[in-house]
Structure formats: structure tokens, C-alpha cells
């Protein structure tokens, strides 16, 4: 089936079965390998992208469900100020270890800050609970979200 997707502000057409999870369309068909495969069951968050601004687990999101919707992947995260602030905070605090989970972490963090510009620890817990990091970067993720929030506040 031919589908047209809007990814990172560009219109792209792909040929794939309607039930194909968006993750494999991004990774295999479009070469957008920033979204990662971690579990395939919506359990780990490694595959997180934004669909209409909301964080979505692409491993359990069929292609048919995102037709015509605005999709932002990690490759497009730097296009907006929140994404840039999160990326900068991640670098400033040296969050990544192996880095594999970090695309998903960053997409979840950006979505959190868009809805909740000054998140509490409890807000961070709730928003980030779906993203596993086996390397154990959680303390720095928490700190980096606070830092990004502060930088965005100061920039306003």
C-alpha cells in the first residue's frame, strides 16, 4: 500500500503494508534509524517519536494510524527550541552512556516540556516511566530535564 507521511516537516511517500509498525517504516524504508527497536511491545520507549506533538511508541503504531499526521522523529527534534534545549542539556550534563535509548528519552522529555514547561520530579517520573535505560542514566536525565526547563524559562 502506498502511503503519504509528513515526517519532520517533509512529505514522504512509502510503499508498505498498512499494518506495518511505523518503527520499521522509519528504519527500514526511510533510513531514519534514530528511532530504535528495544522491545517491540510498547514497553521500553526506545522507538518514541511525536505524532501531532504527542509521544507515540512506533513499534506498536501501525502505518495506517498515522496517515497524513505530522510526525517528528529524533532527526527533526532540533527544529524547535524545546528540542534544542533538551539536546543541549543532555550534552551539558553528559547524559548518554551507550546512547541507544536516548533518542526515545529525548522525544519523551520534549513532549513533557511542551505540555509542562516547569515539571516537578513527579511530572518527570510520570512522563519518563515508559523509557528504559539499561545503562542507568536516569539521575542525569532527571537533572537534564530540569536544566532544559530552566534554560527555556530564562530564554523567554
Amino acid at each position: 500500500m502506498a502511503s503519504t507521511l509528513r515526517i519532520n516537516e517533509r512529505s514522504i511517500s512509502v510503499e508498505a503494508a498498512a499494518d506495518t509498525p511505523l518503527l520499521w517504516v522509519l528504519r527500514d524504508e526511510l533510513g531514519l534509524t534514530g528511532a530504535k527497536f528495544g522491545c517491540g511491545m510498547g514497553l521500553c520507549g526506545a522507538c518514541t517519536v511525536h505524532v501531532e506533538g504527542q509521544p507515540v511508541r512506533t513499534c506498536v503504531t501501525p502505518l495506517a494510524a498515522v496517515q497524513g499526521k505530522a510526525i517528528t522523529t529524533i532527526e527533526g527534534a532540533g527544529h524547535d527550541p524545546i528540542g534544542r534545549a533538551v539536546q543541549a542539556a543532555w550534552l551539558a550534563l553528559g547524559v548518554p552512556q551507550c546512547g541507544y535509548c536516548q533518542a526515545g528519552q529525548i522525544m519523551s522529555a520534549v513532549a513533557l516540556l511542551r505540555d509542562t514547561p516547569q515539571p516537578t520530579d513527579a511530572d518527570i517520573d510520570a512522563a519518563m516511566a515508559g523509557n528504559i535505560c539499561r545503562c542507568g542514566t536516569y539521575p542525569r536525565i532527571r537533572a537534564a530535564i530540569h536544566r532544559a526547563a530552566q534554560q527555556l524559562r530564562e530564554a523567554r
Partner: protein
Amino acid sequence: MTQSSATELPGAVPASCDAAAEADQPPSVARRRVLKGALTAAGLVLCLRHSGRIALAGTQKYGAAGEPGGVVDNPLVFVAIHPDNTITVTVHRPEMGQGIRTSFALVVADELEAEWPQVRVEQAPADQARYGNQDTDGSRSMRHFFEPMRRVGAAARMMLESAAAARWGVPVSEVVAEHQQVWHHGSGRKLTYGELAVQAAREPVPEADRVRLKRPDQFRYIGKSSSRLIDGADIVAGRARYGIDTRLEGMLYAVVARPAVLGGKLAHYDAQAALAVPGVVRVVEIPSHPLPALSYPLGGVAVLARNTWAAIKGREALKIRWDEGPNGHFDSQRFETVLQQAARRPAKVVRNQGDAMATLRDAGRRIEAEYYLPFLAHASMEPPAATARIVDGHCEVWAPVQDPQGTRDLVTGLLGLNESDVTVHVTLLGGAFGRKSLADFAGEAAMLTKAMGGTPVKVTWTREDDIRHDYYQAVALEHLEAVAGPDGLPVAWLHRSASPTEDATFQAGAEGEDSSEYGMGMINIPFRIPNVRLEVPGVPAYTRIGWFRSVYNIAHGFAIQSFIDELAHAAGRDPLEYQLALIGAPRRIDPRRLSDEWNYGESPQRYPFDTGRLRAVIERAAREAGWGRSLGKGRGLGLAATYSFMSYAAAVIEVEVGAGGKIDIPRVDIAFDCGPQVNPDRVRAQLEGSCIMGLTLARYGEITFRDGRVQQSNFNDFPVLRLPESPQDIRIHLQPAGFEVPLGGVGEPGLPPIAPALANAIFAATGRRIRRLPLATQLADWRA
């Protein structure tokens, strides 16, 4: 309390006895064994170069020199300076999150007087003859290559200086390299490294002993925390490439149905429905290799498709009958009884001093405890994945592997090629923790591209594949007995560690821990106990046993540090004060005096067991944590300390146990002594990560077997710690040390104290003793 007799060398070990002692040192065992590929008429054979049970002939070599490939410190191998004045450092050890690409580069850059922003990194392919040892495990990379990488940078700097001096016709003593330029004092002339690059490369490489290293007070990057992560910008932008991200023109995507039981074989399969799935191209049988498992592919049926999803759907449609083989009966619950029985009977003695058995027999009261730790899976976030192709008889592999040369040897053997016909490109590793030391998945990719006439094939493991076909951390049952003297300190200590050996993965029928395995925190207890007996029962393995971050230190550390806490409470003494009394006065102990012939492959003179350093991390962690402060009901502090991989670690965990056993960890204090820290920020990151991983295995980690099959499958039934459960506050306290102190490991030694510190904290909070891991629901009936 009787002091232990003659088990230690007090004070510093004189350096002068090094050579003599090293020469008569009996051969010991490398923790990691190396596979050598070979093709015989009978088929593929992987030979053990050396194993836990086969002694090496000849003189013992320590440290990097004792590892296959040894050390290379030639700057022409590792440094390229480009005419545009950028610098490429080749990093030969794989990056799996420990930060080695950053840290090696900054060591070279510092000695080279390079400007950090101009430095790029290139990952070396598998070629141990060219680069030296590449097998990245055992917390060895910086420990073994700090000095060689310094020499690489310094030698390159000297070559640049020589080139500039020659260009200007002045004595080399009049020029100096600084900030990526060479200056001439007298005239003020200067040339950038880029301008000197071509000429410098033709200068003779200075001999290792002629290389002028910086003084540590001249370091600009080493020991500082300011350097950017070399891959950081790529990671946060989604540009970093892991093994699973490899894409080649015309590539097919494969997933493999493997036998659920180790040693199982394909009996019959029907691929018709699989081939009918749109996108599926071919179904290929992968032959199973007879046990032992080695790093061979497990065999099975591969589905090759136009994309990963089609391959997954195709695999679901396969109809397969398996022949279960010899391990179909394996049941981990029943096996616990086997371990228990083995641990309650006399077994092979690996250390004996005094007469522990008589003291135990005659004692009025013995204190006895058994601790159980289950199998564990690594569950790195990137599951195993590898890509291979063959062009004109040359096989190229792209894979996230910890042991590049081992991978190359494997592929060479599997495909019946010459080593020169196999290239292994090392991608970033999306976590590894020991799993990716054995590259069965890369072997699969190589066999599949061969079956497809060289067409590129990427094999992707699903999470279920990863959990069910791991090389597991071994299950362990630790049996301890002690008799306390009048002061409550033990006068006798008996420890039996019943755990399958990783050797069984390489040698059919190998049983019980080998010297490198009981060498991890069991044999080398430095306590002042007059009667000590340590035994290792032979127990079999029914699955692939592998290496998991800090390995046998996990079980030994948990048991010993829990038991000491139990002894302290039985004696009515404070656990901190008790443990310090047990360790006794600061002294440096030759590990051989503790019957530890292995010592992580390091020289016993260079790396004695320094109880002063152990005491110091314990005292530091306790002080920083506010040990002794009063906490309310349901809250407690727990202490544990371990020495592993030449580093000393102590943790104090504060826990709050709520109704129904809800665990909250407000704070963890970790004191750590790895000698000098080359990249302190990455040391901290590794300790934070070790803490989280330690808490995961303490609270949740368990792999069980039934009918030979792993019962877990994904993060739903093999949970790992998530952010809300992460401690609110992890404080890392690094012990300062000068660069004259030999380096210790970093990636693993932070993990062993975590689980016992948590269990001891839970005891302090609730009076409940946790003797089996994981904690899971053991406190479900707790009322706050």
C-alpha cells in the same frame, strides 16, 4: 580474637622483587578465553587457545602483555594528522557506553598537545595484530592502555617537533609543541600540526623508553571532566550508528527461529506459510553445532525478507518441530535443590588456613546462612544484530561486538576463509554488559550472506530472542558458616560457592567455578580470621553461561557482605565498626597469600590487595552518608564494600520500606577508589549506571528455566529499573589518587556492593533478612 597468622605481607611490597617473583609465578588463567577459528576436514572446529583448566606454559605475563595481541603503542597506527589541522585518533576498543572513544582520544590528545575541538575519532576494525588487544571486558581498557595511549600521543608530538626542527634547521631542543602548533623559541616562528603532518609521519618513531611523557601537573584533559563526549552530538540528534542501524544497498533483513533448548536441533520445518508472507524472500536453514556452544550460532531457521517486519511475520508463520536434545529436562527450580545439596557437602578446597572444620565442629554455636542468586540476562537496549556481505570472496561484517578479533576468528572459521578475507567493522554498541563478548549473532549474519551468495544480510534479534538465547549470568547458591569468638568476630569461616562455570560454554562437562571465577571476590577475602576454608563444588551447566558485568563478584559480594552484616547483628555490634574490625589495620596483601593465583591477570606486586584503601572507601561512604543517623520506622541504612577489578567500592544505601513492601531509595552514597581517574565524569557515569543495574538485579532480575526453556521473554516479565524507581540522589565520592598509582577498573567494580547494601538496608529498616534475589515480592506482607 586471634590474629590470622602469616597470611599477609605487612607494609609495602618492595618493587625490587618484581622480576624474580614474576618469573616463578605459576601460570594462571585469563578471565576471558579466546577462540581461534580453524577449518578441518571434519568441519568447523573452534579451538580453545587456553582455558580455565589448561595451564599456560612458560613465563607468566601480566596485564596487557598477558592478553592476546598485547599492546601496540605505535603512533602511526593510532594518530593521523591532516593537512587541514584536524586530528584523527583511532580507537581500537569498542564503545559500549563506558566512554572509551572519548577517553582514549583525550589521553592521546593531551600528550599530543592537540586542541580537543580538532580531534575526531575513528573506530578500528578487528585486527589485533595491528592494534593490540581489542577484547573489551574485564574493566581493562584504560587499566591496560592508559600508558600506551600516552606514549602514542607523546611520540607523535616528538615527531612533530623533530619535523619542525628539521624544517627550520635548528636543534630539536629549541622547539616546543603546544596547542597544536610547534614553536621555535629563538625566532618566534611557528607551524601548525597540519603544516607539519606529512613530514612528521616520515620521522622515526621514538622508542618506547625514549618517549617524553608529560608530568601529570601538565595534563590539560586527563583527570578533568570538561571534555565533550565524542559521540554526544550524534547521539542526541539520532545520527549515531549502532550495529542494528547498518544499511547496505540491496540488503535483506533476517530473523531466526532458534531452538528453545540449548543443544536442540531442527527435526522438521515447513516454510510454505512463511514464504507466502508479503516481503519474505527466502527461508534458510542454519545448521546447529554440537555442544559445547562456544560462540557458534545456535542454528535454526532464518527468514529473509525485504524488511524486518516481514521477516518477523514470516518467522511467526514457520511450522517447526524441534529435537530437544539433552537439556530438555532442565528446570531451574529443581536445580536449586541440586545446588543446595552440593553446597552442603564437602567439596574441592580452594583455600584453607587453620582448621575451620574442627572449629566449626567443636563450636557451641555456629552461624549459618545460604544465599541464592538466579540466572540473569543482560538485556542491553540494543538487542544483538549484525550485518554481513561477501564481495569477491571477501566477507565484511558490521557488528556491535566487544571482542572484534574473536568475531573475526569466528567468521573466518565458519566460512572457511583466510583471516585476510574477513573484515569486521565495529559499530557502536547499544549496551553490552558482557553479552556482546560472544558474537554468535555475527556468525549468523556471515552464514546467511554465504547462503545467499554474498547478498548483504542483516540479522536482527527481537527482545524475545535476546532474553531467551543469552549467555546467562550463572545461578549461584552460596553457603556460609562461621563461629564467633568472644568479641563477636569470626574465628572460623566456611564458604562454599555452588555455581556453574562459564567454562562449560567452551568445554562440555566443565563443572564448578574455575580459579578466575572464585577469584572474583570469594577467595581473596582479606579478613582477620584464623580458620578459613573455601570450597567450590562441581555443579553442571545446562545453558550457555556467559559474563555479566562484574560476573561472579555479584554472587560472592552479595553473600559475603550480607553474611558479615548478619554476623555483626548477631554480635550486637554496629555493621560499620564490625566490618572495619574484621578487615583490621591497613596493610598490603600479596594476593597469593590469599591463595589467589589469578588476581585478574595482574601482577601481585603491582596490584596487592590494599586493605587500607578498602577501609578508606568504607569510611568515606559511611561518613558521607551520615552513618548512624537515626531514621524512622521502616527506614534504614545498609553498607557493603567489595574489591574487584583492582578497584575498591563501598556503598551506603538508604531505603524506606512502605506498606506492601514498596521500596523507596532516597539516597545512595558510593565511595570509589580506582586509583587516578582519567575521565572523572565517565567514572561517575559508570558508577551511577552500576548502581541502577545493581538495584535492578537486586529487585527484579531473574531468568528461570522449565523444560529446558527460558520462561521470560521481554521487559514485561524481565523488568528493569525505571526512572521513577531510580534513587532520588546518587552521590559518587571519588577517592583522590596520584598518577603514580596503578589504574583500577571502572566499568564493573561499582556493581557488586549494591545488592548487599540494599539487602542490609532492608534488614535495618524491617528486621527482615533477604537471602535470595531478586527481592521481587518478598516484602509484600510488610506493614509500615
